[in-house]
């Protein structure tokens, strides 16, 4: 490669078979204490026909060192935040503090059973309560449920709350006329999917040439009394703040609908502006984005749902509430000590439960630790750094890539491949070439309304030097696209595996390992 790549060099990559291909009859990697009760045939307990009759054939038989090497080798094939910048737009790949990991592993939390009595779990319930309070302050929305397990789950919860509220307000018959959910064409795909789950049909709102919600179109769609609500991402998926947000909320409210905000981009707002102050009725947050709980290769997440006082009765149950025995007044040390926390199921208008137990509790511990280590000023500083970094990239790449919208972006910025397509180089190729430079690619081909979109979100966890390296890498790719397009078209060149034939994989899906003699592909 002729380019001067500063961030990476090639390194050793081990080959590693599937564990099933490594398995050897008779190997074990565990030891249990010997059975300390009377042994007798299982047949005396469980009828033979209910028992496993294939001796768990096919499950691996390996030693502990086999397991460690197997996973350690595979781990080296992953790019991760700890290796460097991971500028996936809308995903907020920020640093995951080790301290938060330690907190989640404290035995008093990690070994606590979810059905422990309230008395036995006061500390755990207090964590939930305190996190709720902080999220209420950050969003300006006082009603919180931490039960949803992910962003799309929080979204579904929010939309169901809208439906339940309208059903209660208008009565079943009238509310049956109000089954339209408005969603901008730039929205995340989960928005329409979640609306559909709650029995809404979707109408799409156009974006203006400036990349914002088209108010005229919104007004037009609001005529007729069919609108239950609007699902809006703000800043939107182009990284732009919907500056008409108050007017948007007014239009929807005047039409009898509610405003749901997708909080995926909350990293642009924490400590700076609050959805509750903008007129938003309900929002979900992604603790795994904004509040730095690890993404884990695709989960677990945690998608709290936050809403106005008016919508609070509809939140999932149980709610976690505090009872303060000392009379109302300024909180004192003594009062705080006598606080007790309990589960409250008495919300007859609740949409119901969206998950067993209380949600992804381990993520709540980490998010609370994030809020406490940052402090109120640190939360705002993180937001400033995230926006500053995106702005720096917006400016740094403007010479080489097409920026489809003039406005200054918030925490993420969108570019396109318009200039590069002349030489046959497309967004996918640019993304793959970026891998050779040691970066994880940005989000590509999203939002759908921008042809060849490249959505870049650096987050606050990247320093000046790495931003410069990234800009340099992107500029270098832009040059390569002109001077040596083949180099870009055939990228990546440095990975242990080349571009995989995804179309063939989908045509004849092989979704599991099978022993050689029995191997067949799925007939679907």
């Amino acid at each position, binding site marked *: 490669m002729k380019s001067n790549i500063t961030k990476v060099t090639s390194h050793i990559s081990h080959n590693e078979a*599937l*564990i099933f291909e490594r398995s050897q009859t008779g190997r074990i990697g*565990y030891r*249990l204490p010997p*059975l300390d009760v009377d*042994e*007798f045939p299982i047949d005396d307990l469980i009828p033979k026909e209910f*028992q*496993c009759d294939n001796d*768990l054939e096919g*499950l*691996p038989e390996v030693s502990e060192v086999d*397991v*460690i090497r197997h*996973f350690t080798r595979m781990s080296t094939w992953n*790019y*991760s*935040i700890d290796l460097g910048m991971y500028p996936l737009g809308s995903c907020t790949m920020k640093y*995951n503090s080790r*301290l938060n990991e330690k*907190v989640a592993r404290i*035995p008093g*939390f*990690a070994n606590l059973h979810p*059905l*422990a009595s309230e*008395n036995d*779990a006061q500390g755990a319930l207090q964590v939930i309560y305190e996190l709720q309070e902080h999220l209420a302050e*950050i969003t300006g929305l006082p009603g919180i449920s931490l039960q949803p*397990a992910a962003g*799309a*789950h929080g979204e579904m919860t929010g939309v169901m709350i809208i439906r339940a509220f309208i059903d209660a307000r208008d009565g079943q018959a009238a509310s049956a006329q109000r089954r339209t959910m408005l969603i901008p064409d730039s929205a995340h*795909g*989960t928005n329409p999917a979640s609306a*559909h789950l709650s029995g809404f049909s979707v109408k799409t709102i156009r974006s203006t040439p400036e990349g914002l919600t088209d108010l005229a179109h919104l007004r037009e769609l609001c005529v007729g009394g069919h609108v239950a609500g609007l699902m809006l991402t703000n800043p939107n998926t182009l990284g732009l703040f919907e500056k008409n947000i108050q007017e948007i909320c007014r239009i929807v409210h005047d039409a009898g609908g509610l405003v749901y905000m997708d909080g995926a981009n909350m990293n642009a707002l924490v400590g700076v502006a609050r959805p509750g102050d903008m007129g938003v009725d309900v929002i979900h947050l992604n603790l795994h984005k904004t509040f730095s709980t690890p*993404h*884990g*290769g*695709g989960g*677990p997440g945690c998608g709290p749902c936050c809403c106005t006082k008016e919508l609070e009765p509809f939140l999932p149950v149980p709610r976690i509430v505090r009872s303060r025995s000392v009379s109302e007044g300024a909180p004192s040390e003594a009062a705080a000590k006598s606080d007790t926390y309990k589960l409250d199921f008495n919300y007859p208008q609740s949409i*119901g439960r969206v998950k*067993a*137990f209380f949600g992804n*509790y381990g993520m709540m511990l980490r998010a609370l630790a994030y*809020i406490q*280590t940052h*402090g*109120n000023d640190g939360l705002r500083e993180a937001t400033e750094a995230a926006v500053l970094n995106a702005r*720096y990239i917006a400016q740094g790449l403007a010479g080489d890539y097409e920026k489809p919208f003039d*406005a200054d972006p918030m925490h993420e910025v969108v570019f396109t491949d318009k200039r590069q397509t002349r030489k046959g180089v497309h967004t996918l190729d640019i*993304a793959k070439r970026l891998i050779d430079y040691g970066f*994880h690619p940005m989000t590509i081909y*999203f939002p759908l309304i921008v042809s060849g979109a490249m959505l870049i979100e650096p987050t606050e966890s990247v320093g*000046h030097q790495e931003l410069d390296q990234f800009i340099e890498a992107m500029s270098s790719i832009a040059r390569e696209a002109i001077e040596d397009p083949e180099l870009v078209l055939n990228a*990546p060149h440095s990975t242990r595996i080349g571009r*995989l034939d*995804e179309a063939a*994989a989908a045509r004849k*899906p092989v*979704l599991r390992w099978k022993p050689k003699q029995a191997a067949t592909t799925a007939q679907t």
Partner: protein
Amino acid sequence: MLRQIGLNSAEELFESIPKELRLARNLNTPAALSEIELLAGFERLAARNPGAGRSSFLGAGAYQHYIPTVVDHIVSRSEFFTAYTPYQPEISQGTLQVIFEFQTLVCQLTGMEVANASMYDGSTALAEAVLMAERVTRKSKVIACGAIHPEYLEVVNTYVQHAGIELIHADFDRGTGQISGALAELLDDKTAAIVVQSPNFFGCIEDLTSLAEQAHAVGALLIVAVTEAISLGLLKSPGACGADIVVAEGQSFGVPLSFGGPYVGLFATREKHARQIPGRLVGEAYDKQGRRGFVLTLATREQHIRREKATSNICTNEGLIALAATVYLETMGRRGLQEVARQCALKTAYAAKRISEINGFSIPFSGPRFNEFVVRAPVKAAELLGRLASEKNITGGLALSRYFADRPNDFLVCVTEINSRAEIDVLVDGLSGISKHKDTKTPS
């Protein structure tokens, strides 16, 4: 950097936000804590969870099992836990191969042909299975049979309330604790699916083969939910019994209790339904040189392409927890899983026998069991368990009054390989000692 982009202050970064919407004050959240202060604070809170340190017989959907040390070690590798969903396969092969192995293990254990990359947990996996059954059969009546975890049923209810699905409940048999004859009367050709949990909420094993036959006779699917996945090490797999969709809570596979989450939902079905499955799927793929790799596949089912017509709104899986389950299953392996399951069943049998011999105590359900069983006490179960905790420092089980108002004296006991014989003996002594105590006597 601010100056490099032509700005003078951080405030100018936010000029696109109308001034009246910008927060003119600091957030009213606490000031920053150091590492020392933060850990001390969380340790203080953890100390207020006495339930975490006790010898315990609580199960009911979350189970205390031995977790090999290697599980947390692997899960703590930042290459795994600080990666995102594997959108760029060339630099995500670690995550992708793990998920492919996970899908394979789930298929092997459930006896099914296709499994997805995981769901949020067992309860949401069950709800998604019900929605899928409606898509597959184009019918809308779903019968939930027998003793299903009450919280799972609540979640299913929430999911189906606007989906045009009619959810009917067929009661359990009061004598066996298993499915009763009520099912036969409810079953007809409008039925999309029968939902059953086995072992069920009371710990009894259901006759899945017979249920599959009944379901298939009217063109319905059989959905089987497993909350105690260790049972798959000993019991005939739902797939071998004829199930069409199998969901399970995978927490028992190396995942800490953590007050209810994060856990991991397993979801498996037949090959012919692969394109109706919710969530992510990983499949085998090859590059130009013919090297094997893995990619996310069949994405046309998903919301980023299908939008409102997607099979589900689920976008993430529980990647890291699926990794924990994979490491657990590969470390324990074929023989380890069998051994854990066998020890659970035998220790449970020992505990059930000892408890049933205590004066005034009985075991109300006669159905065969794996590692949980209901005990009927001569006194109110919640009070009995409260005193057991405060006086003997044992969590003796779950008072069923939490979910069933008509079962004040019943509690659910779970025994796993973690519980030693000595611990079981202490439980038995505690139960008999406290129940003899006069002032807790209530008429039963």
